[in-house]
């Protein structure tokens, strides 16, 4: 391989004791290092990075942190309902997204669907949906549907749909096509062949992907309330704007507990599946 870099910095030729000679390409590190340093410098300028402020006022951070770590659990009774709302939104959203994702991912996988056009359009759609931050989706949903849990559920469903679809079509493309082709050769239609030959291979991965998506969703759904899309973010945003960090601490620790329980359950189920 001869590229521009090798021309600029010619590789070193080393003659070994046995008479053979090997070439050692010049290291790319100096150039990469210099580029990264320049980028860091530019970014520091652009973001007005200022260490002196950090040193002078850095203790403010720990003031807040100390308050968060003294949670006031008498406030917990106001947190349970929104916390469960968040979990319920995540479950319904992840379920709806997951159900829609299965047929869509089949359409997107290039070994089942032979139509290149359709694949590219579907994948572009998925990429765009996946790129939009969940908060922006939630904001759009609250504008179209009213404020409340339904808007949040729609945002979660769309986000999960794009994530599960992508993971599934990548998985389907790696599958063994032998059984599928055999069934097609025996005269089965493509849909019938897919259901009988591919589904048993797809199902365990699909279910564990769906469980995984519930797991990650609970974490990310906790902020949706901030734009009015229901759930624990509503209380969180309210307490944050009132600067009642003791209550924020309560909410965060309860969320931590919920996330821990859900992750443990889902990990147990995924282990069973595989």
């Amino acid at each position, binding site marked *: 391989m001869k590229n521009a870099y090798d021309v600029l910095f010619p590789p070193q030729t080393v003659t070994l004791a046995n008479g053979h000679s090997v070439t050692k390409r010049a290291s790319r590190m100096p150039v990469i290092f210099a580029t990264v340093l320049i980028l860091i410098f530019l*970014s520091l300028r652009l*973001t007005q990075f200022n260490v002196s402020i950090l040193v002078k006022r850095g203790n403010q951070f720990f003031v807040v942190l100390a308050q968060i770590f003294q949670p006031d659990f008498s406030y917990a009774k106001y947190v349970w309902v929104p916390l469960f709302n968040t979990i319920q*939104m995540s479950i319904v959203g992840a379920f709806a997204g997951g159900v829609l994702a299965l047929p869509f991912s089949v359409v997107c996988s290039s070994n089942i669907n032979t139509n290149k056009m359709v694949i590219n359009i579907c994948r572009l759609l998925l990429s765009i949906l996946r790129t939009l931050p969940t908060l*922006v989706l939630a*904001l759009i949903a609250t*504008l179209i549907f009213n404020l409340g849990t*339904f808007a949040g559920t729609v945002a979660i469903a769309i986000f999960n749909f794009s994530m599960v679809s992508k993971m599934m079509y990548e998985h389907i493309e790696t599958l063994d096509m032998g059984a599928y082709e055999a069934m097609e050769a025996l005269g089965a239609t493509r849909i019938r062949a897919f259901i009988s030959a591919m589904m048993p291979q797809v199902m365990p991965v699909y279910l564990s992907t769906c469980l995984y998506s519930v797991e990650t969703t609970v*974490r990310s759904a*906790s902020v949706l309330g901030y734009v009015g899309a229901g759930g624990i973010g509503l209380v969180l945003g309210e307490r944050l704007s009132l600067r009642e960090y003791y209550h924020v601490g309560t909410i965060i620790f309860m969320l931590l507990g919920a996330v821990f329980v859900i992750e443990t359950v889902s990990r147990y189920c995924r282990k069973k599946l595989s």
Partner: protein
Amino acid sequence: MEDKINRMLEKQPQHWKTQLAVLIGIIALLGWSGSAIEFRGISARGPAMALGILNGLIHPDTEILFSLTVDGVPYLILETLAIAFLGTIIGTIIAAPLAFLTARNVTPKPVHYTMLVVVMLIRTFPSFIYGLMFIRITGPGAFAGVLTMSLSSVGMLTKRNAEVVEDIDRGVLESLGAAGCTGFQKIRYGILPQLYSNFVSNMIYRFDINMKNASVLGLVGAGGIGAPLIFNMNSYRWNAVGSLLIGLVVMVLLFEYISTRIRIKLARGF
């Protein structure tokens, strides 16, 4: 022949009881969850909103999209990228020693478990809470965004890098020792090459995530493309929203493509 096939079919384990139980469980869970979702109908302006967004995406405000001023999309994207980039770099620097402290094969058990709890705590805080905390220090602006991204990167990077450290192949060290290498040479030629590419790969992966997160941090006033996006949305300026969203999507897709290429290269070795 048919008998044989039938016998094989009967031999198959019968899972229908567990499957039925799981199905009933899922339906019950969905029923319980569904009770919390209240559909309040499409808002009065809902259809108009949906059309407005679509219209904005098709007819973006080209003045904002290509203007090179501080309010233009290119500058905002550059700012978002700078926030994500610096956050990733600082996060990686902080996470590197922490990863060694977290790795099971390097530290004693108590330290390992303490670090696991710390990492989980860092990861549980939604990043916009960090944003609000840092804004108290720095005031609103991109600087707060950088600090937020740095801290929220530390959790995931520590976890993933610790896994890399745990997977180190000790055989390489032994053979280097047998060849007569000194301790320093063992680290330089035995450990660093094993860690380097995975650390960089994790860093690039985190950069992708940070880029997406940095775009919503504007919500709390921590700089980037998020603030004008939400501001324009709330005042229903769909053409401006359209151009900002297009900028955002193009930025994320482009950098995702580049970083996937680099990570594939890293995984294969140069």
